[in-house]
């Protein structure tokens, strides 16, 4: 139901990550999924792709509370060729009704009962959200006067819920069988299943639970005929010391009487221990998946501002070039 992307060529059966039009970025909570989605957006924008990062499961309420309110639920430009939007099921529904039913849309949209009904129907929120994502990825936008994007990056919810989102259109198509929802569900499901169009990227950190969840995600996607197109390991500590040096640090910690030196030595040994654990988990993930990982360094900064995101984009670009 979509036109092929101008970046695609029929001679390239397995396109690179940024050659798709729609990338779902998922992973366990707290692994830096939003950061990676934004950095990926920067990489794409640098290549001249008109890119939008769409945030699902919006944290907009948090923003509001802390006076960081921008325009809500609309497309906002962040940089050259880089846009962002926070997708809210409620607004997505109003937009959908408007397009589908015209005047009746207003009637439904203003009915409180209908809102309760639509928002409470299991899976409806997910369907509306993913429907909006699909709309953003169309060359012919349904939204009046809206320009097309070359790439839509979805900052998707944590793994379990993320898979549910990918699965919802098909579930609805099956349940509703006929009618507009079934039709819409089938169209979106076909788009998601089209691996020349849609990619799924997982973000993990090198710790037990996120690694387990990434392996689980791969299996869950496989059941639905989908796969992981990239796995990005975030926040890796540098390997600063070799084993001989570590032994030396331990000896120095025993001997030193300066509290300051001891604090620094403790910090060095502590980070070294964590880096060692990370190396083990990273190996487990890589072996479990049987693929190469894209690696991102830990960012030692109080906040991830533009400069830090650009640095991560550099690393991401290098990693993607290596693994493709």
């Amino acid at each position: 139901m979509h036109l092929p992307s101008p970046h695609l060529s029929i001679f390239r059966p397995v396109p690179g990550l940024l050659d798709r039009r729609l990338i779902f970025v998922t992973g366990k909570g707290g692994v830096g999924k939003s950061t990676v989605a934004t950095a990926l957006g920067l990489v794409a924008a640098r290549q001249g792709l008109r890119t939008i990062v769409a945030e699902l499961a919006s944290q907009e309420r948090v923003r509001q509370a802390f006076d960081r309110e921008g325009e809500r639920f609309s497309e906002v430009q962040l940089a050259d060729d880089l846009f962002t939007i926070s997708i809210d099921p409620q607004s997505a529904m109003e937009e959908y009704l408007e397009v589908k039913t015209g005047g009746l849309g207003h009637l439904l949209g203003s009915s409180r009962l209908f809102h309760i009904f639509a928002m409470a129907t299991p899976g409806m929120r997910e369907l509306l959200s993913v429907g909006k994502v699909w709309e953003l990825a169309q060359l012919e936008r349904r939204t009046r006067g809206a320009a097309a994007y070359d790439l839509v990056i979805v900052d998707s919810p944590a793994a379990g819920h993320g898979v549910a989102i990918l699965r919802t259109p098909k579930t609805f198509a099956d349940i509703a069988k006929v009618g507009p929802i079934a039709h819409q569900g089938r169209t979106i499901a076909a788009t998601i299943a089209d691996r020349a169009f849609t990619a799924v990227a997982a973000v993990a950190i090198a710790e037990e639970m996120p690694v387990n969840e990434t392996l689980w995600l791969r299996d869950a996607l496989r059941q639905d005929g989908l796969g992981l197109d990239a796995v990005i390991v975030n926040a890796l500590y540098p390997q600063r010391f070799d084993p001989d040096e570590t032994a030396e640090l331990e000896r120095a910690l025993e001997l030193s009487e300066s509290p300051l030196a001891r604090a620094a030595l403790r910090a060095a040994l502590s980070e070294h221990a964590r880096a060692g654990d990370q190396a083990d988990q990273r190996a487990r993930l890589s072996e479990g998946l049987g693929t190469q990982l894209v690696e991102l360094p830990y960012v030692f900064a109080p906040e991830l501002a533009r400069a830090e995101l650009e640095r991560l984009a550099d690393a991401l670009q290098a990693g993607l070039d290596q693994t493709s």
Partner: protein
Amino acid sequence: MSVADLLEGKRMCICGGSGGVGKTTTSAAIALGMAARGAKVAVVTIDPARRLANALGLEELENEPRRVEPDRLASGGLEVSGELWAMMLDPKRTFDELIERIAPDPARAQEIKDNRVYRQLSTAVSGSQEFTAIAKLYDLDREGDFDLLVLDTPPSRNALDFLEAPGRLTSFLEGRAGKAFIRPTGFGMRVLSRGAAPLLAALRRVTGVDLLADLSGFFGLLGDMTDDFSRRAAQVEKMLRASTTAFLLVTSAQSAPIDEAMWFRRTLQESGLPFAGVVVNRVHHDLLGDSDPDDLLAALRSELEPELAARVAENFHDYHVLARRDQTNVKRLAEELGGSPLLLVPHLDHDVHDIEGLLRVHRYLFASPSEREQMIADVVA
């Protein structure tokens, strides 16, 4: 203030927070600590790390609490005078059991369980975990076998989902909206306003007839059971609001989870739910104090090769950036909290996924403020 003080006289501790902040570990460490102090405690977790699950003896999903063998705890060096029980929630099974309990007869229960809308409802990841976690908590509370229940809330991006999702599902099951729409020829039609006919036509147009028919079938099966859902929902709400319930927020020291914890607390208070305090995990404590960074390099050089000393100093500089960040965030949180309890657990050398790790976290959570300060000082001294 320690966790033991916070939970004095409480029967239920609900640990909320955004994903990846150490909620599961914190819940387990709290349950362990309270058991060590003589209580019979059950911790209900959603999806613990495999090694933590093994440590607690949770290899199988049983959907009922099972006692953690005292030997396992003793091997970690903790005398437990009470009892620690643990269970891993099975949302689908909990949902099925709820239907079986409420249904008038087994045949109806089976029909509901076979219904397509129900199958979608009970396995949808969003909402069903939250709904069934609370349902299980309510049943365990009513059975009254435990002095304290500790709930590790489902992993979600937004901590508030835990409060909102069960309500959404309950209002669906109560069928308030459903009933009115679903029976176009019944009583519902007559009581609806004159706008109802076009409204219904529009609804058909956007949803399709089959979906409406399925929903109609589902609500038909539920019948009077919707009243039971309403009654239960009212009792559950009473339980959550009780003075014997404590909502404990868990966060890491990074800015986004701290923002979320602040927002979550405001919502709890606005909703009149009993907020007890915040646990901040993985705090990088300030080890530099007022010292001059130049002194550091000099001190290191007296022990190490200059090049190695420089790398240790660089590592410390990076650590200190995180320590300053954490300090700023924790200060912001403390200001928001006013005098409410705030417990800090340091960034430990390893992830926590065994009994020893739990014991380490537990020591910080259950220490008095002076003990905790001493523990942090000891790390350096």
